[in-house]
């Protein structure tokens, strides 16, 4: 059973340490997004990388529309991986929507996680006037879905979801050339909807695990107001504003990303 999970989620374990550090990619791409960051932690930690079902080289046959249309499905993937590897005292590093997934996972199994590192987090991406500015209107999200539909990157099937309809015919599961960053209209679309249409603000007070909020400068997807909101409503959180701009500091500014995480973990070790 646990071997199935490792294969299902394309789990990769590296590193020479014993303390587990679990990296969860966000919407859009897969575990390769962490490539510029994980090497810096390999000496001291056990690095666990995985792909959510439907992303990267995960087993597409395990994909289920209902399950992966809400963040609960992705949360389950995280908990399944932790269970399969018998991980405890986990430092969870989640990018973007995976920040929320980490929060949700920690609510369900608080004793499994020691720290949550949230890279570019947002509990809700759309605007909720008068007080909350998530950054986007519904029309913007529709625009994104439209844009994804017109890109043919890493589509599992061009015209029909034949893979899903014929689980007994594995030869149909093709190796995707660019599975790294999929705009698949069926799978990636559901992930997009689960990400951008959910509102998890009410879950914040339930979190018991301490967290680091890594807020980028000029991040259009997780703007500064959202970082502020989180630091005020997420118990046990520490806010660090990065010089890095944009939404993917682990890709665009990996050195600063590594430094900030290391500083946070060192401070935690002391306390």
């Amino acid at each position, binding site marked *: 059973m646990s071997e199935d999970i490792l294969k299902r989620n394309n789990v990769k374990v590296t590193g020479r340490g014993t303390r587990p550090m679990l990296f969860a990619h*966000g919407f859009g791409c897969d575990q390769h997004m962490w490539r510029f960051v994980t090497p810096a932690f390999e000496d001291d930690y056990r690095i666990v990388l995985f792909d959510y079902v439907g992303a990267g080289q995960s087993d597409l046959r395990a994909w289920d529309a209902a399950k992966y249309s809400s963040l609960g499905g992705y949360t389950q993937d995280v908990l399944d991986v932790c269970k399969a590897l018998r991980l405890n005292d986990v430092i969870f590093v989640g990018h973007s929507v995976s920040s929320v997934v980490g929060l949700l996972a920690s609510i369900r199994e608080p004793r499994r996680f020691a720290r949550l590192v949230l890279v570019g987090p947002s509990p809700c991406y759309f605007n909720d006037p008068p007080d909350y500015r998530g950054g986007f209107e519904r029309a913007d999200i529709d*625009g994104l879905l439209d844009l994804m539909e017109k890109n043919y990157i890493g589509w599992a099937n061009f015209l029909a979801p034949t893979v899903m309809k014929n689980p007994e015919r594995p030869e149909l599961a093709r190796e995707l050339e*660019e599975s790294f960053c999929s705009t698949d209209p069926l799978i990636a679309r559901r992930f997009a909807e689960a990400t951008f249409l959910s509102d998890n603000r009410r879950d914040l007070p339930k979190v018991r695990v301490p967290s680091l909020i890594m807020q980028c400068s000029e991040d259009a997807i997780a703007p500064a107001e959202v970082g502020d909101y989180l630091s005020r409503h997420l118990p046990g959180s520490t806010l660090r504003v990065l010089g890095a701009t944009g939404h993917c500091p682990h890709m665009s500014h990996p050195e600063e990303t590594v430094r900030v995480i290391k500083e946070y973990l060192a401070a935690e070790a002391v306390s």
Partner: protein
Amino acid sequence: MDELLNTAPCGFLAFADDGTILTVNATLLGWLGYDGGELLGRHVESVLPPAGRIFYQTHFFPLLKLHGRAEEVYLSLRSGGGDDVAVLVNAARVERGGAAVNDCVFVPMRQRRRFEDELLAAKREAEEANRIKDELIEELSTPVITVVDGVLLGPIIGSLNRERADLMTGALLRAVVERRARVVILDVTGARTMDADIVQHLSRAAAAVRLMGAGCVLTGISAGVARTLVRVGADLTGIEVRRTLADGLGFAMRAAGAGRHSRQR
């Protein structure tokens, strides 16, 4: 900038890893309604509408950074006037002046986009129509008729694939229980094809019916079907075979009646 590139019939833009626009050619400036150096030093997101900004961060830039190139990416650029220009982008990561630079070439997609929109709409309509058709077929494909008390008739019409066979077997077994059937007639007069697979489905269905304690009669077998059954070595033990539906009905009603008598005794 090289004059050829500056006025080439394509847009050109180069940006640094932190998103700063380093170079823009005249063609692109023209499309977007900007002057000379207006875009230099600004973030590439300033020429993207909100949806595009998300896509840039979640797909476009990661693709570039990890694969070193991105091809045939569809984007909308936002002009100075607020309109959107649909473009196809090819991008490559190069090293220039000791730093990584992302070079992008843009080709407008106005006509193609209109055509694609129509294609996508037609595809969605076809998918919906297919879905309705599949639902209808499912409804129609598993009738189980009570001929008289205790005798069921399951007519097989058209072709039989595994999915349909499963549905049919399920419906039959449910009916055997709910209507307390003593005999089930499987009539294949209307079956379009009879190959080895279908024969297997049928014999499994019949076996399941017999396990439920009901008798099973196979009717409507043509000469061709009989040959196929023999050729594939079909196992029809415990299954009565009658050539016509009429013969099968006669047999079934006698068997069901005899059963009733034996119960009454």
